[in-house]
């Protein structure tokens, strides 16, 4: 049989779907660097990294959900709710910062759990269930705050969004840590394998003895948790928690995951890919700003890039099948 080149590590990297989007990212960076000398400065690069890190954290959770063949539209509302509930805990109820953060995370898990129950026990399509929670969580955010923003956080909380470790912004460290943890989780644990199996063929996974309901509920809980973490980190960055935070972010999050190579039909995808997807969109936005492109055109350009990035990957997949 001979050593087929499938085991050659360089060949494997080339064939992997993440290679394509990493190339796209590098090409984009080169392009922008050539057109604007402000791009490749340490300050700017770290600033861009921090800017997209919040969506990237949400994209990690969304990635898990989409791999199972589902979708989570509620992330942006959970994002806002966790921000305001933890702010209220700290500022209005005077609770210590770590406890407030736990409350924010618990809220994220609770909404995720609700999503999971609706989808597995009530058999609602994920699109519908999470659309419902999108509205409910947003409404609750308005309700508990009366629409008023909540400022004046303790310094230790603000550090999460505004602090640095060395020259690296804390949110970036948080993203890298979460990225590594969940990447290993997805690739190497039993639970990660079950997620891929459910996405690949839920019926076969069930026949094989996998408790598909339980796995799916946990996945939605994780998505809620990460959305909550991202929401609190953003509130910390801005110095104020708003019930209107993150509106529209669910689309950016889903786009990041899809650009990153996760298929909507489920069964394939990586955490690293989702983060690169968020990076592509973040770098793109930054580039358009540096190049003085009007804010109105930015949305159009981003939409085009999403279509191009996914098409490029689809073409490689079709060619590989032949």
């Amino acid at each position, binding site marked *: 049989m001979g050593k*087929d080149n499938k085991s050659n590590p360089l060949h494997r990297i080339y064939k992997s779907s993440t290679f394509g989007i990493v190339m796209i990212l590098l090409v984009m960076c080169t392009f922008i660097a050539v057109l604007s000398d402000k791009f490749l400065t340490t300050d700017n690069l770290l600033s861009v990294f921090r800017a997209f890190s919040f969506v990237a954290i949400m994209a990690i959770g969304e990635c898990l959900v989409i791999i199972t063949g589902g979708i989570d539209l509620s992330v942006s509302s959970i994002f806002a709710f966790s921000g305001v509930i933890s702010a209220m805990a700290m500022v209005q109820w005077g609770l210590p910062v770590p406890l407030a953060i736990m409350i924010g995370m618990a809220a994220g898990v609770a909404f995720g759990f609700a999503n999971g129950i609706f989808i597995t026990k009530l058999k609602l399509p994920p699109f519908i269930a999470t659309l419902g929670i999108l509205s409910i969580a947003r409404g609750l955010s308005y309700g508990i705050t009366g629409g008023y923003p909540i400022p004046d956080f303790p310094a230790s909380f603000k550090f999460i969004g505004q602090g640095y470790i060395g020259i690296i912004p804390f949110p970036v460290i948080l993203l890298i840590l979460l990225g590594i943890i969940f990447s290993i989780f997805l690739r*190497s644990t*039993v639970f990660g*394998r079950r997620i*891929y*199996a459910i996405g690949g063929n839920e019926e*076969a996974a069930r*026949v094989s*003895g996998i408790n598909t309901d339980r796995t799916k509920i946990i996945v939605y809980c994780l998505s809620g948790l990460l959305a909550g973490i991202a929401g609190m980190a953003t509130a910390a960055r801005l110095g104020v928690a708003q019930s209107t935070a993150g509106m529209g972010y669910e689309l950016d999050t889903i786009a990041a995951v899809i650009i990153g190579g996760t298929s909507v039909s489920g069964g394939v995808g990586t955490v690293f890919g989702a983060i690169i997807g968020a990076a592509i969109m973040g770098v793109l936005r930054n580039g358009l700003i540096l190049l003085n492109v009007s804010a109105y055109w930015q949305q159009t350009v981003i939409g085009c890039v999403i279509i191009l990035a996914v098409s490029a990957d689809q073409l490689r997949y079709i060619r590989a099948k032949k």
Partner: protein
Amino acid sequence: MKYEILRMQNITKYFPGVVALDNVNLTVFKGEVLALVGENGAGKSTLMKILSGVYQKDLGKIYFEGKEVYINSPTASQELGMSIIHQELNLMPNLSIYENIFMGRENRSKLIFMDRSRSYKLAMELLETVGLHINADTLVKELSISQRQMVEIAKALSLNAKLIIMDEPTSSLTEKETETLKNIIRKLCSQQVSVVYISHKLDEVLELADRVTALRDGNTVGTITRAECTKDKIIRMMVGRELKDIFPRSERNASKEVLRVENISTTDLLKNVSFTLQKGEILGFAGLVGAGRTELMKVIFGLDQKVCGRIYVNGSEVEIHHPKDALRYKLALVPEDRKIQGLVLGMSVRENITLSILDKVSKINFIKRNMESYIANDFIKKLNVKTPGAEQKVGNLSGGNQQKIVISKMLATQPQILILDEPTRGVDIGAKKEIHTMIDGLAQQGLAVIIISSELGEVLGMSDRIIVMHEGEIKGEISGEEATQEKIMHMAINQ
């Protein structure tokens, strides 16, 4: 002089790896009822699908009304003057009866607008003909199965065809409706319309058919006339053959009871099913499609819920609500459809084989790849799976090898009881033999095996005991030695 309205001559049809029809000849005279009989997989449906334009023949000729015809699509078949009543209902549940009847050839008032009142009126007349006293604008989803079947019949009649093919038309009908259908058929014949009647219900065949043609293994066995017809003759044409395949049969000693199933009933099909299984024996389940065998195994394995009944493993009662529970009690199931229920096609051989034993190949939740690869390669060798390696995507393997992967996955759980549902369906001859030998070997080592198969030869060749089911009930049990294909077929069609 009898006029030949249809002649199918030397029809041959290939599917990947199998010859579905081999030089089949079929003739139908004008105004007659021709019954088409044969076991599951004999080729009846394939032949009719060629006639109705769903499949294209590979070789042979078709003559309709004396002229050679080429049937490229269902529309072409309809335009020639043929209509078909399918075994699986082809109605749209959210639409009304009259919309379904005139689907694709709607009555129009002006150009693009539908003439609903005309459609309604015509539909009501048709419903009258089939004895269905229901409003034609009732939505199909509100109808019972038998009513839907009558609507299908009405639809076929409305096409004013010269030849109507009826594939198991009475499978869902009540006795009264069956009588109505028989009268309709008699009337059609008097109007010089021909009917091809496919059915397992030999009483109906004897009553209605002018002639009976039998298919077996994709070949025409023969045709007999009404005068020559007896049930025995028909059954013998359907099944009688030399057992050319020698099935492996080692010395097996069935010992103690390992599984007992009592009074299992489900909401729609199974009625009071009970049986036992012993260590070291191969128990075959025979019966027609829809007899309830797969449904029974799904209940035992926890994929479906029973309404009542008990299951005992090794003498103790067990509660099985999910495949997880079944696997815990050392019960394993190789499902009927490997692509839909058995494999994650996008995953590798290794990942598929270990899917049911993830806890055993991991430590504190981290999967040990080496252990996985070891187990996978072990099965690849033991079952002689043809694959470039354990990392190959399972979707790229052939049917027979895919089946071996599903079997490997279940064997990896080290079961006491192994249920195999159509284990060699769509599998090439070579792999078939390997799988049979493997099953025989497992039984010899003390595994208790249940095998469901629609191939009588396989059931007879492999089983120590055979249970025959019909419409959700066990109709009979017979030992491997006493069993013959005819005896089984008699029980399977409840004659």
